[in-house]
């Protein structure tokens, strides 16, 4: 990392073997420890074990379970910022974090993690964070690799050479058209519920009628009803009429979309940070109370999709 860099330094690397993973990540962590920087390893089980074995005991690296950390982007950002703020409060002037975000290769739709990787350049920029995000070429879809090259300012080759990513885009530019919503099969069917210009309580009532089919847990249903209410409120207050609520259900699952004819939230961290622009807090809550949230923009306007229950 160049001397004098301020804010986040966001780097990616691609590997196709355990050896190649270690050849890039081990030096990254060791240099952090040697420099006296707080150094965090945020991987899922397999890679975490590789690193623990290679580093040995008393490594000086803080190992945080990546699975628990990366439950959802909004949760990850909150935890990540807490970690960073804690180190800064303790006097750190440089912090290293290596970690891998979920994607279809690990069984999770990419979409909101693409938003996360772009927004990371903004939401961590107030901290002296040197982040390394490796992607496993054996399981990572091509689109994810492409997005990694567009959301990280730098790239590390397998030989350890650091280069600037010429394909990097500022978060707002990347998010303007790069991210497409994953296909939800239920949406191909006619909706079970459709309400034009619903008041929030009408929207909640309409979604509640689907519970007899879906039989969600109490928390999942409550989270979806709160999220639906927040989404409809945002559409009525910040969007442009007409507003349309649609919902689909299957056993164990309810999908709700709320669309309006406005442009949608302008903030790149909308839904990922609590204070990201008008309606931001409601969106942020929805991103944590639902199994998945998609933000979709088209020529017709903006649509939010809320998924409760099993995410497939």
């Amino acid at each position: 990392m160049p001397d004098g860099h301020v804010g986040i330094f966001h780097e990616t690397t691609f590997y196709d073997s355990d050896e190649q993973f270690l050849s890039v990540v081990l030096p990254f962590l060791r240099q952090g420890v040697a420099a006296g920087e707080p150094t965090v390893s945020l991987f899922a089980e397999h890679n975490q074990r590789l690193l623990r074995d290679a580093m040995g005991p008393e490594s000086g690296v803080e190992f945080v379970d990546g699975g628990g950390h990366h439950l959802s982007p909004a949760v990850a950002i909150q935890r990540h910022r807490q970690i960073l703020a804690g180190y800064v409060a303790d006097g750190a002037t440089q912090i290293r974090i290596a970690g891998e975000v979920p994607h279809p290769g690990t069984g999770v739709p990419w979409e909101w993690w693409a938003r996360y990787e772009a927004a990371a350049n903004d939401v961590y920029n107030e901290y002296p964070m040197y982040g390394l995000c490796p992607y496993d070429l054996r399981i990572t879809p091509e689109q994810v690799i492409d997005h990694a090259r567009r959301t990280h300012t730098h790239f590390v080759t397998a030989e350890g050479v650091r280069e600037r990513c010429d394909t990097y885009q500022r978060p707002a530019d990347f998010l303007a058209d790069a991210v497409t919503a994953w296909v939800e099969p239920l949406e191909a069917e006619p909706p079970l519920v459709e309400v034009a210009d619903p008041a929030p309580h009408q929207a909640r009532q309409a979604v509640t009628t689907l519970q007899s089919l879906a039989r969600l847990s109490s928390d999942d249903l409550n989270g979806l009803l709160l999220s639906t209410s927040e989404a409809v409120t945002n559409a009525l207050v910040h969007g442009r009429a007409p507003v349309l609520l649609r919902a689909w259900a299957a056993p164990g699952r309810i999908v709700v979309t709320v669309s309006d004819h406005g442009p949608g939230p302008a903030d790149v961290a909308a839904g990922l940070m609590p204070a990201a622009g008008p309606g931001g807090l409601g969106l942020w809550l929805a991103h944590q109370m639902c199994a998945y949230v998609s933000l979709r923009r088209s020529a017709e306007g903006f649509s939010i999709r809320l998924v409760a229950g099993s995410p497939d």
Partner: protein
Amino acid sequence: MAATFARYEHLVDTHMARHPLTGMCGFHRARLSATTIAELACLHPLASSGSTPLRLFSSDQADISAVLAGEVDLAGRDLLRSALARIDLPPVGGEVIIDARELSFIDHQGLLECVEHIRGRGAATVLHLAADSATRLLLNLLRLPDVRVVTA
């Protein structure tokens, strides 16, 4: 006028909640706007269906500052704000204690409206919630330092 009368309604409500007295108030729908009727109806423990989405009234227990019931969302936000401004919320040991066991829904803005109003009075908020209340999910995420939950 509505504000003064609403204040009277609250004082009468508090008196009746703790004395062997029951009253029924009627309002002339043709003479009063729906908004004015809602502002008055919401200060009663019971109200005609459709007259108000929420109710904020006195408890028969002296250790409960007020009871909040019904639904609070975009449609009731202004109503909650005016009701909070018109009633007494006597703190008990530095805390305003709201019985919200009959509150079937509140969105984050309604919740913050309530907590910030109480904070403005220099008190912390205690919420009595039903066991399956969705409000608990909101509170877990919002992590408001001056809100305490009591489960029924």
